[in-house]
């Protein structure tokens, strides 16, 4: 009995060791939560220098708003507004009751997308050619004796199988060009972008370079990792002329897909500048249990400027041809952006 007692006491003590070893919980006050988030952003956000942000002045603005007796909702608003100073759609604060986002990225520009217009006047032009295969809407448009494939993909979060992709690209066989509509695709899983881009090339190319923040200084980055467009091993791909339609709602993985596509000589981007979001968002937890994320990497284009510098298109990947949706044309049943894409594929201009 004594031995059992001794053993129990030792067990309890050893469990105490475990608790002592891993340390106490942090303070959960509004001040502690604010300071923690501010410091995390200061040391890890990857576009501090690119966006010329003065994070100390942001501290000076928001620190006086933190009060010990403020409600959780009031604290959330202050922290969310501070995060929005980053002007980054990947900067989000997540509490159990709501989450924050930076909306001006796409609200500052016309939407340039009308899904009903597209459905009514293009996809349903010939219902017998219209398919919804997995997350893809697709058809083949007959225009003045030429045939153009039209594919819409609304979210990179929506996965697809090889069989689904094979079916889509089987329908594109022999067409004179493909229009890949990426408008208002807010991003999702980046591996879907790699897979999809591989269906538009026969040659491996570097799509972009990715580098991760690796230290607290604004210029502390690890080595650049070349992200390649690898041709699909499936024979069902399309390596002819391709147009990718974009708007400001084409964000995150959509923008990375556009970087890939810009690296292919057979592809042109038409529409509005994408929303950007080329930084990989991390995730972390605050002292009070809320979570957050913000960009911690940079994606640099494979294209270079006259000085040999790679472009950082965090604020948006530019199109080769800028065009907006014309409301007057839309009222007549024409998607002016799509029509411009058809015109390019017909004339090469």
């Amino acid at each position, binding site marked *: 009995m004594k031995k059992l007692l001794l053993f129990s006491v030792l067990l309890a003590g050893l469990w105490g060791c475990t608790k002592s070893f891993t340390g106490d919980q942090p303070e959960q006050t509004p001040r502690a939560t604010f300071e923690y988030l501010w410091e995390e952003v200061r040391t890890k956000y990857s576009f501090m220098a690119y966006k010329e942000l003065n994070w100390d002045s942001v501290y000076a603005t928001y620190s006086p708003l933190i009060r010990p007796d403020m409600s959780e909702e009031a604290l959330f608003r202050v922290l969310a507004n501070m995060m929005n100073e980053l002007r980054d759609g990947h900067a989000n604060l997540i509490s159990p009751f709501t989450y924050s986002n930076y909306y001006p990225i796409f609200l500052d520009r016309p939407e340039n997308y009308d899904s009903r217009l597209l459905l009514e006047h293009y996809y349903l032009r010939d219902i017998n050619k219209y398919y919804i295969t997995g997350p893809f809407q697709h058809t083949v448009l007959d225009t003045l004796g030429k045939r153009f494939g039209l594919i819409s993909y609304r979210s990179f979060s929506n996965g697809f199988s090889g069989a689904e992709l094979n079916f889509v690209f089987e329908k594109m066989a022999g067409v004179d060009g493909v229009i890949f509509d990426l408008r208002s695709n807010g991003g999702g899983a980046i591996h879907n972008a790699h897979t999809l881009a591989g269906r538009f090339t026969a040659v491996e190319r570097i799509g972009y370079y990715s580098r991760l923040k690796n230290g607290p200084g604004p210029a502390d980055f690890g080595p650049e990792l070349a992200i390649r467009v690898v041709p699909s091993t499936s024979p069902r791909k399309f390596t002819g002329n391709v147009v990718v339609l974009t708007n400001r709602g084409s964000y995150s993985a959509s923008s990375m897909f556009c970087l890939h596509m810009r690296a292919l000589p057979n592809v042109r981007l038409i529409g509005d500048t994408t929303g950007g979001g080329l930084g*990989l968002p*991390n*995730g972390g937890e605050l002292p009070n249990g809320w979570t957050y*994320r913000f960009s911690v990497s940079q994606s640099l284009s494979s294209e270079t400027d006259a000085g040999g510098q790679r472009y950082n298109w965090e604020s948006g990947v530019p199109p080769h041809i800028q065009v907006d949706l014309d409301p007057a044309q839309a009222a007549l049943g024409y998607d002016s952006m799509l029509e411009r894409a058809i015109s390019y594929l017909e004339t090469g201009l």
Partner: protein
Amino acid sequence: MRKISFKSGIHLLLTIGLIGASLSSFAIAPGSKTKKQLTNQSLQLYGGLTFLGFKDELQSPRTYAGMGWSVGAGYDRIKTNRLWSVETQLYMGSANNQLQNNFGGNAAQVFGLQMNIARLWRVKAPIGRLQWYAGYSTQGYTQIRVNQALGNSSLGYDAMVGWGGVSRLEFPFRLKSDKTYRLWIFKYTRKSYRSLRLGWQLELPVVAAHVRTPYVGVTNTVGNEPMAGLVQDLKDNSRLVLAGNYLYLRNQLYGHYLLKNGNALSLQWQWTGYAYNYNDQATRSANGQLLVGLRIKLDPHPEQRR
């Protein structure tokens, strides 16, 4: 100046006092078999509960705690003047941030693998029956944590391969355990003893190679060659670190009950602590395992080796 709270003080005392005690080992054999020793070669198989705790400052300032289960295996070879052992444990469990609200708290799934290989030689002990072994050990430690609430940073990991010195002090002794039998007016006392062995093993880390989650808490696997990205990350985040910049403690407390066939049932408490500082953002983890097991003799002729 920061005051040490009562709670912290208790934990500190427990840490100092019980690290030594926890490094002890007991071996209890029935008195009638005091001369029978454990086989010179043995295989141990065990399983049981594990108590987890960790704090990964790259991802959160909060301490996570929880429970799970573990399994393990070991091999011992003991000769007159030297001792060789290999032990490995696999554990998994769930830990949460200890912060419950109406919406629930964040939780992580934890997977761990530990391996220790030690080789010790008997050296002359300074005191009487004290047996002193000294040698070296290789320590392997890996912990993988998956916390879905952290999105792209859901994966956190620490891995270490270390080398260091090992010192073990053992003190065998017997406790009187007489049994008295009565038959009417006759009284007979059978003299009996229980053999015990107290031991204290200290592993002193010297140098170790560490790798852990990248500084920003996310792995650069954004390419369509994720293995290349992962290999690059492992390369970029590997460090060779000298003692003082990391801590690895592994303690064992166990009791054996010898069976007639020479095998033994065991009850064991094992505690491992790991701490490593990376770019001023530390990780600390500890796990305690309560294990029941079977020690199987492998030596076919143990008596010939006495």
